[in-house]
């Protein structure tokens, strides 16, 4: 295989695995309003990674993973501990805990000489280079380590989300009720936090500690704007994640931006969100504006219809509405035009008359707003 093509495939595969596995757990973070906890975990696993590194002197997954999971859970537990002491809000507690832990990790990397971690790579990821870090077992090269790690993580996350689907759903929607039925929302919470920590460490090698949160949260938030069913939201989150990876890869290529892959993918995820936020059929900005405009127009039409019975000429109706509602003539003319387009009015330059359909509409209105 052509080495350049092979590299492209590996980068896209790594990105896709990252996007899919983060979207699975990220959807539940978004629904639980815990997006920032995801951010906190993905930062605070850094000291865990360094300690795991010290213990194994290389990036052995069997040591790195438990170390990072422990760091992630410690973060969540510390945040809750501070928050429960009832003086600081949850966001302040979060912001106290994770930068401290993250910075501790940065210091450790800088000061401990034989930790062979590249700070840039840890923070921003280097998805372009994943093919240079192979998994070697018993002297055999099994291909890029990140792909293996992410593949296994994807299976674990799938197992969690599919196996505990109804438990995750009920404890996210109504934790008190879940508890009363004998499901343990607290256990599910910590299980999910463990999954987020493990997913973050599997992903950080490819996309870095800072951008993991973009993959955890943005595709899930995008999907949330588009659907009213949980399974569809999770599926769409995965799809948006994959789309961001492909789009980001193109953006980062030499022909366009010639930049870092992970950053371009995070930007792509943001662009997709922006697009959906503007254009989503129900929850989008444009839809909301149109809905409001339609309502306002409808209300104005109703008002004019109700006033038409007392006015026969254009001038009269304009005058009435000016006196009562301070409408300009132009506004009144606009609504009159809209009403004639509906076929409820027949207008000429001078007179304004209700058509039979218009009379019917007025009768209906009168029954809806009884005087």
């Amino acid at each position, binding site marked *: 295989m052509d080495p350049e093509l092979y590299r492209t495939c590996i980068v896209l595969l790594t990105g896709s695995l990252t996007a899919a596995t983060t979207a699975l757990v990220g959807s539940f973070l978004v629904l639980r309003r815990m997006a920032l906890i995801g951010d906190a975990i993905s930062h605070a696993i850094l000291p865990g990674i360094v300690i795991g590194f010290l213990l194994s002197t290389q990036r052995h997954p069997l040591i790195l993973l438990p170390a990072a999971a422990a760091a992630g859970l410690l973060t969540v537990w510390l945040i809750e501990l501070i928050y429960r002491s009832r003086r600081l809000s949850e966001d302040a507690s979060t912001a106290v805990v994770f930068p401290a832990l993250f910075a501790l990790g940065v210091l450790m990397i800088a000061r401990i000489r034989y930790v062979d971690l590249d700070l840039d790579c840890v923070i921003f990821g280097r998805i372009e280079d994943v093919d240079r870090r192979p998994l070697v077992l018993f002297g055999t090269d099994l291909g890029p380590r990140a792909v293996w790690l992410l593949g296994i993580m994807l299976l674990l996350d799938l197992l969690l989300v599919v196996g505990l689907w109804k438990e995750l759903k009920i404890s996210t929607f*109504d934790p*008190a009720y879940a*508890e*009363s039925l*004998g499901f343990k929302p607290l256990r599910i919470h910590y299980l999910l936090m463990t999954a987020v920590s493990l997913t973050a460490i599997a992903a950080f090698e490819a996309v870095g500690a800072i951008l993991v949160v973009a993959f955890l949260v943005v595709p899930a938030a995008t999907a949330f704007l588009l659907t*009213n*069913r949980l399974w569809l*939201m999770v599926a769409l989150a995965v799809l948006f994640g994959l789309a961001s990876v492909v789009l980001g890869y193109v953006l980062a290529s030499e022909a366009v931006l010639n930049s870092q892959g992970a950053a371009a993918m995070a930007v792509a995820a943001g662009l997709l969100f922006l697009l959906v936020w503007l254009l989503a059929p129900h929850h989008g900005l444009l839809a909301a504006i149109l809905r409001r405009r339609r309502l306002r127009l409808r209300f104005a039409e109703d008002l004019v219809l109700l006033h038409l019975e007392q006015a026969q000429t254009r001038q009269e109706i304009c005058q009435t509405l000016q006196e009562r509602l301070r409408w300009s003539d132009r506004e009144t003319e606009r609504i009159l035009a809209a009403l004639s387009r509906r076929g409820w009015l027949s207008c000429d330059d001078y007179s304004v008359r209700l058509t039979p359909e218009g009379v019917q509409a007025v009768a209906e209105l009168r029954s809806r707003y009884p005087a």
Partner: protein
Amino acid sequence: MSQTPDAAARVVDLTLAQSSASSDSSAPPIEVHDLTVAYQTRPVLWDVDLTLPEGKLIAIVGPNGAGKTTLLKAVVDLISPAAGWVRIYGKPYRQQRHLVAYMPQRTSVDWDFPTSVLDVVLMGTYGRLGWFRRPGRAERSLARRCLERVGIANLARRQISELSGGQQQRVFLARALAQEARIYLMDEPFAGVDATTERAIIQLLRQLRDSGRTVVAVHHDLQSIPEYFDWVVLLNLRLIAAGPVADVFTPANLQRTYGGQLKILTQAAEALLRREEGRP
């Protein structure tokens, strides 16, 4: 339900064998003993002793912050008490979950959650299914029947964020019905619903009572207590009084429950007056 309290009672319970209470089927549905609950250092319930009878419609009444919700939560083990205990048919709640349906306040959940009405009602069957098992056709048809009973079968596929307050309350009620329990604990089932819904809900609660179920509801409207309920529990941090409405729902007890809150007392006086005149 497949498991009756008798069947459940056959399991030997050491803590109960040591106490004087019997664990046979004659045990009361809910027994609260010396219950004290505190958040931080502030007590919310103080030394509550309460035994509720079977097959009655029971209101829990008291001013804001009186501990009504806390009492329900303590019964279903959502809060661990500082002292005291609760028994359901003579046993701890965790052995009797299948006999109890708990309905939290409607406002306690996020109605923007991406799911359908039927799906929320299906959650009522999760307890019986236990871990990992998914609801199947039997559960789905049960959930549909429950939606019919609360009169919103036509909304089964509706997204829950599109519901009115009354419809949300009916969904929660249907979910509790799907548990097919013997005890129903409801936190403000009438909060923020229109008159039609209120009538529908009370009718349903009466049906449950008439089929031998015990229904306990936190209630705010003192005026409707004599009309709706058989029993009343007056609560204000401590238990003020509990018993049949005719014995316990008296001006003196209400005065002790609400202190000087004049408006509520006036409402209550009207309700009492109507009761004495012999009409609901």
